[in-house]
């Protein structure tokens, strides 16, 4: 038996799903799209049923990909029962979707979620009377605390088992257009729901500060600064011992297999790819995604979108596109993945292209190890500001080049909520799983190829190949190899540079101008292999190549400019 969960965004549908689903829950894609749904087997009353969590939809007649896919799924798949989750504090809006669902052939149960929140703001719902009117069971639910979950699924099991479900007494309307649904839902609410007075709540007081035209931005800076401090702090704490441990394993494997053999080199190369993946995932991606999930579930990310909308407009995007940028400073892979929440394909392309220009944690290590260490933190800061300026400029140019009317920001700002740890962990896990499946294999393959090239002493060949670029930038010929293989693993750029130049004391082999030129070029050029994988998945092969080409052009121009300016000062 298969039960589909459907509801509007922010109704707590995923919280309900996470209450019943195990960690073995699987995300799937609707064929040919990046729209995902989640499915899990659940034990109810001694039986196993399949529960499918569909993406949040305001209406079945919706225009965005998630909504289209949700309604297509309900129409085509053999869904035995629909659980329609409603936010009890906004019954009328939720009922608009319910009325659409009542016209489908599968039986429906309405779950009134967040009854506690509704009660707190003085809302009273006459459940039995509403149930009578709609013709389907209406059950109370507080999914975040697990209250009402069991009775709901037991009722679902009972109803879903019926061979020929009788839906003749369901409330059906003659004209099924959105105006008629809106009117009917409004009437139902007036009849069965008693509203409390809108009063100054905790939310208003908090928003008075966090959405304040001045203090809101101070709050934003403090919150994001703290967020990055904690994430990077945890990252560094975990990274050092983790890498030391993994290095030991690698050298032992090398000894065991016999050093200097081709086979050993390839195995060690692949092993280093495995390590690189772990080195990104455990120290940075895990804390980053947990933190982001937390901020999302509290409801703060949509407030960030509200605050940043005006600024994002200057680069041709709107407030919702802020998430890829924040993520990008940790790792470009989840940043590119997060662009799928944007509605418009053009906006997805621009946001993904710009996100790949954001310097991730790996590039941070180059900026710190080279520029900040030898030339001082001020120059490093200037490079970061240059990066932001270039991103803004590229954003403007791209939006001007691909004109298409974006409607602008339309985004619900949900009440603040206390996140359930389970939901946060599960969300982070799904995102990490995507990295593991999509990007990790590429890292491993890339690393093996790198080892192969080393074995055959292909360095000269690659240096010659890259010479036109290194010559133009005034860099030593030997920087060709670290630049090419930096694509495989950017966090190794500095180590490889040291190997190529024959010294880790970069001030003896690099001039100040060369340090700046090299760092600026590395900041912008070709995204790492893992990010390329993510770009291909989200946007397709063609867009992946366009973005790659774009980054090379941007990197060349900015590095040349930086070189010119640096030559004046040094």
């Amino acid at each position, binding site marked *: 038996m298969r039960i589909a969960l459907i509801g509007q965004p922010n109704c707590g549908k995923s919280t309900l799903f996470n209450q019943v689903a195990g960690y073995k829950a699987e995300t799937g894609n609707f064929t040919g799209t990046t729209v995902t749904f989640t499915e899990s087997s659940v034990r109810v009353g001694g039986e196993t049923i399949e529960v499918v969590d569909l993406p949040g939809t*305001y*209406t079945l*007649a*919706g*225009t965005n990909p998630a909504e289209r896919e949700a309604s297509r799924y309900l129409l085509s798949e053999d869904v035995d029962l629909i659980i329609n989750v409603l936010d009890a*504090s*906004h019954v*009328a*809006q939720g009922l608009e979707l319910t009325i659409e669902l009542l016209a489908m052939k599968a039986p429906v149960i309405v779950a009134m979620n967040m009854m506690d929140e509704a009660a707190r703001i003085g809302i009273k719902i006459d459940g039995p009377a509403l149930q009578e009117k709609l013709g389907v069971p209406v059950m109370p639910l507080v999914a975040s605390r697990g209250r009402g979950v069991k009775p709901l699924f037991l009722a679902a099991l009972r109803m879903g088992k019926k061979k020929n479900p009788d839906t003749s007494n369901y409330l059906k309307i003659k004209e099924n257009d*959105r*105006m008629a649904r*809106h009117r009917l839902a409004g009437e139902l609410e007036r009849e069965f729901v008693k*509203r409390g007075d*809108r009063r100054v709540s905790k939310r208003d007081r908090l*928003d008075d500060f966090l*959405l304040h*035209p*001045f203090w809101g931005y101070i709050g934003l800076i403090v919150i994001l600064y703290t967020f990055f401090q904690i994430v990077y702090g945890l990252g560094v704490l975990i990274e050092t011992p983790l890498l030391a441990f993994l290095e030991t394993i690698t050298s032992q494997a090398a000894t065991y297999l016999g050093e200097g053999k081709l086979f050993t080199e390839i195995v060690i190369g692949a092993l280093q790819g495995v390590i690189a993946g772990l080195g990104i995932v455990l120290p940075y991606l895990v804390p980053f995604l947990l933190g982001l999930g937390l901020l999302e579930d509290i409801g703060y990310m*949509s407030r960030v*979108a*509200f*605050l940043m*909308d*005006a*600024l994002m*407009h200057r680069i041709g995007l*709107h*407030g919702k596109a802020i998430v890829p940028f924040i993520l990008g400073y940790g790792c470009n892979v989840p940043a590119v993945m997060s662009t799928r929440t944007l509605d418009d394909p053009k906006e997805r392309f621009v946001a993904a292209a710009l996100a790949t220009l954001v310097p991730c944690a790996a590039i941070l290590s180059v900026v710190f190890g080279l520029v900040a260490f030898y030339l001082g933190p001020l120059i490093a800061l200037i490079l970061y500001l240059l990066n932001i300026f270039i991103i803004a400029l590229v954003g403007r140019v791209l939006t001007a080049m691909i004109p298409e009317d974006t*409607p*602008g*920001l*339309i*985004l*619900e*700002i*949900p009440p603040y909520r206390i996140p359930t740890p389970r939901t946060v962990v599960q969300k982070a896990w799904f995102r990490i799983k995507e990295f593991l499946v999509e990007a990790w294999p590429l890292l491993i393959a890339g690393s093996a190829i790198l080892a192969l090239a080393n074995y055959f002493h292909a360095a000269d060949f690659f240096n010659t190949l890259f010479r036109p670029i290194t010559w133009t930038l005034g860099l030593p010929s030997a920087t060709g190899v670290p630049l090419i293989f930096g694509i495989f693993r950017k966090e190794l750029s500095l180590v490889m540079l040291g190997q190529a130049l024959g010294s880790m004391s970069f001030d003896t082999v690099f001039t100040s101008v060369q340090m700046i030129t090299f760092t600026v070029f590395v900041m912008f050029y070709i995204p790492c292999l893992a990010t390329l994988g993510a770009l291909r998945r989200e946007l397709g092969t063609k867009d992946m190549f366009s973005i790659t080409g774009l980054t090379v052009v941007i990197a060349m121009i900015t590095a040349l400019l930086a070189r010119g300016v640096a030559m004046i000062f040094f």
Partner: protein
Amino acid sequence: MLLSDVKKGDLVRVLRLGGGSGLEDKLTQHGIYPGDCIRVLREAPMGGPILVDVHGREIALGRGVAKKIFVEDKECE
């Protein structure tokens, strides 16, 4: 009058949604229908979005979107 011209705190009735059917779809999904009353709660600085109360839900609307919503400021409770 356009929604973008409404003062913070004022309650207005939606008359008409402009800007084509795509925008109309998105607005109605968020509960903004002609005939409904909405209140402007907050404004972001520098031409940023406004925050409106729609039947108890708070929706952020970009200035460009607010310019496409025609409203009148009478007959709302």
